[in-house]
C-alpha cells in the first residue's frame, strides 16, 4: 500500500509534457512560411499530408507527404518551439515527389506541409495531430 515515489515522478513528467490547450502557431512558423514562399499566395490541393489523428507516441510521429510535380516540400510542426521539421528538394530526375519521416511533437497541434510547384506556385495541406495522456479505452 506504500505510496511510491516512482509513480509520482512518472506522473509529474507526464504533466510537464502536456498542456491543456493545443499549441499555438508560433511566430517563427509564419516567418518560415514567408521565407519559403517569398510572400506568394498559397493554394490548396495537389498535396497530400498523411499523419495519424492521435499520436501513438508524441516523440516519434510518422508522417508522409506527397505533391506530384513539386520541386520542393517544406514540413512544419507549427506548435513546436522550433517549427521547422524538414525541407525536401526534388531534382528533375526524381521519380516521385514524396517523402516520409518521423517527427517529434510538443503537444496537440497542426502539422503543415507546403509545396513549391515547378511553375513557381505554392500549395499547402495541414493535419491536426493530437497528443494525449491516454488511458480509459472502452
Amino acid at each position, binding site marked *: *500500500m506504500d505510496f511510491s515515489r516512482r509513480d*509520482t515522478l*512518472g506522473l509529474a513528467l507526464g504533466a510537464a509534457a502536456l498542456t*491543456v490547450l493545443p499549441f499555438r502557431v508560433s511566430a517563427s512558423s509564419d516567418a518560415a512560411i514567408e521565407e519559403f514562399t517569398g510572400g506568394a499566395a498559397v493554394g490548396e490541393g495537389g498535396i497530400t499530408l498523411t499523419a495519424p*489523428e492521435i499520436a*501513438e507516441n508524441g516523440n516519434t510521429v*510518422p508522417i508522409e507527404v506527397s505533391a506530384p510535380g513539386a520541386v520542393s516540400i517544406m514540413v512544419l510542426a507549427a506548435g513546436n518551439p522550433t517549427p521547422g521539421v524538414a525541407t525536401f528538394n526534388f531534382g528533375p530526375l526524381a521519380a516521385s515527389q514524396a517523402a516520409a519521416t518521423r517527427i517529434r511533437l510538443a503537444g496537440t497541434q497542426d502539422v503543415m506541409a507546403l509545396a513549391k510547384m515547378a511553375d513557381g506556385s505554392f500549395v499547402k495541406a495541414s493535419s491536426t495531430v493530437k497528443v494525449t495522456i491516454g*488511458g480509459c*479505452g*472502452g
Partner: protein
Amino acid sequence: MISRRDFLQVSMAASAMVGASGFGNWARLAAQQSLTQDQLLEFDTFGNISLIHITDIHAQLKPIFFREPEVNLGIGAANGQMPHVTGADFRKAYGIADGSPSAYALTYNDFASLAKTYGRVGGLDRVSTVINAIRADRPDALLLDGGDTWHGSYTCHHTEGQDMVNVMNALKPDAMTFHWEFTLGSDRVNEIVEGLPFAALGQNIFDSEWDEPAELFKPYKFFDRGGSKVAVIGQAFPYMPIANPRWMFPEYSFGIRDENMQDMVNEVREAGADVVVVLSHNGFDVDKKMAGRVQGIDVILSGHTHDALPEPVLVEKTHIIASGSNGKFVSRVDLDVRDGQLMGLKHKLIPIFSDVIAPDATITKLIDEQRAPYADQLSEVIGRTDDASTLYRRGNFNGTWDDLICDALLSEREADIAMSPGVRWGPSILPGQEITREDIWNVTSMSYGEAYRSEMTGEFIKVILEDVGDNLFNPDPYYQQGGDMVRVGGLGYRIDVTKPQGERISDLTLLKTGEALQADKNYAVAGWASVNEGTEGPQIWDVVESHIKKLGTVTVTPNTSVKVVGA
C-alpha cells in the same frame, strides 16, 4: 447501380417482416411466460449469404445481467443520432413497448424489476444454440468475432485468455479482429494468433518500427459463399497504444488508416469481391465517419462502443450493424448478392435471453471445464447489495460500480480523490444479490490493474479531466477513443460538453471539504489502470474486495457530483 432509395426500401421491408421495431414484439408472449426460443430465432432466410456477428464478449462465458446506459451523449453531428439515444427516446425510435423484453434488453429503465421478470442474458452456450440454429438454415454462414474476446474475467486473466480461446474455437468463427487481446502482451497474443484455426484480421495492424503491415495479421480474407465472393476486411481498435499500455505491445502500431482501408477495398474489388464486409473495432461514430470517407464497403460489423441497435444505420451505401457486448446479443445479417453487388439485406439483433434459449450442452460442458480449476475462488461470496441498490457501469459520467470502486480507492488507499477508468465492459448486479469474487473481477480484471497512489496538483487533475473529456466529446469522431469519461470519487466538477478542450471542465471541488480545488496544491489521488510502465500498488480487485468485505452490504447513493451542461 442500386439506388439509395432501393436500399432504404429493402431495409424497411426487412423490418416489416419481424414486427414494427424490426426486433420483435414479445411483451404479450413474455407476460404469458410463453416467449420461446423459436420466436427469438424466427427469421425467414433471405438472399444467399448469412453473417453472424458477435463482439465485445469480454470473456463472459456465463449468463449475466447487463444494464444499458442512461447517458450516452452525441456531440456535434452525432447529437440525437443513433446510438446516442437512450431510454424512452430509444424505445420510441424503434416502437418498443415499455416493460417489454426488448425494453429490458435495450434500455435502462426499470432495469432491476425487469431483470427479475426476464432473467439473465448471454452465456456462450446459449450463443452456441443461436449460431447452430442459423447454421441449420444456412450451413455456410460466416461467424465473425469483433474482438475484446480474450479479456474481462477471473478465468480469462488466470489462463491468459486460454479459456476464451478454447470456447470460441469450439464455436468455429471464420474471422476475428482485436483490441484488449493485445493487453495480454505481444508475446502471448502472437502465440495464440499463430495457432488460431481462423483468420486474424486487421488492415490497420502495422509493425511499429517499419510502419508496414504486420505479417501475423492479414488485412482481409475471401470466402466463397452462396455463389459469391465475400471479402471480410479487419479493422482493429485504432487507438490501442494510446488507450492501453503501449509498452505491452511495442512492436505494433495501429491508427484508423482509412487511406489504407480504401486501398484494401479497391484491392478486393479488383480481385473479384462481390460484397465487402468490414469487421470493425473502431467504435460506432468512427465507423460512421469512415463509411462516409471510404467508398465501396457494403456492411460494417461495428464493435468497441458496446452499442446494441435493432436496425442497421445506413451511411450512403454502407450498412452499419451494432451488436452490443458481454455476450448479450448476436446479430444475424442475411445478404442478397447478385451480379457482383449487394441487392438487399435483412438483419435481426437477437437478444440472448438465457432462460429462454436452451444452452448447447457440449459448450456448457466445455465452459465448466475451463472454470472448474477456479471454482472455489470464483464462487466465494464477498458481500451483497441492499434491496434498493443496483451495481452497473455504463453511462458517460458515472455508474454505481465505479462509484463503489472509487469509494474503495478513497478508503483503502487513504486518498483525497479517486479515479477509475471509463471502460464500458462489466456486467451488473441486482438489488439483494450476492457479490462474488467473480463479480468483482468481471468489472476490474486486466493485465495492468495496479492501484497507484500519487500526489497530483489541482492543475494536473484538471488537465487529466480535459484530456479524457476531449477523447469522448471531441466533435470529430476520429479524435474519439470510444471510452466513457474517467470516473471520479471525492471530486465534483462541471462539464460543458460543447466547449473545446481546455474549456470544458470547471468548478472542481474537493468534496470532503467543499472547497474549490487549487491549481498549485497537491492532492493524494488513487486510481488504477495506468498506462505507464512500472506503476506500483495492490491490484484493484483486491482493493475492491477488501472494501466490500468491510461493508458487508453495499448501498449505493445517487451521485450528483458531476454537473453536465450543453447536453
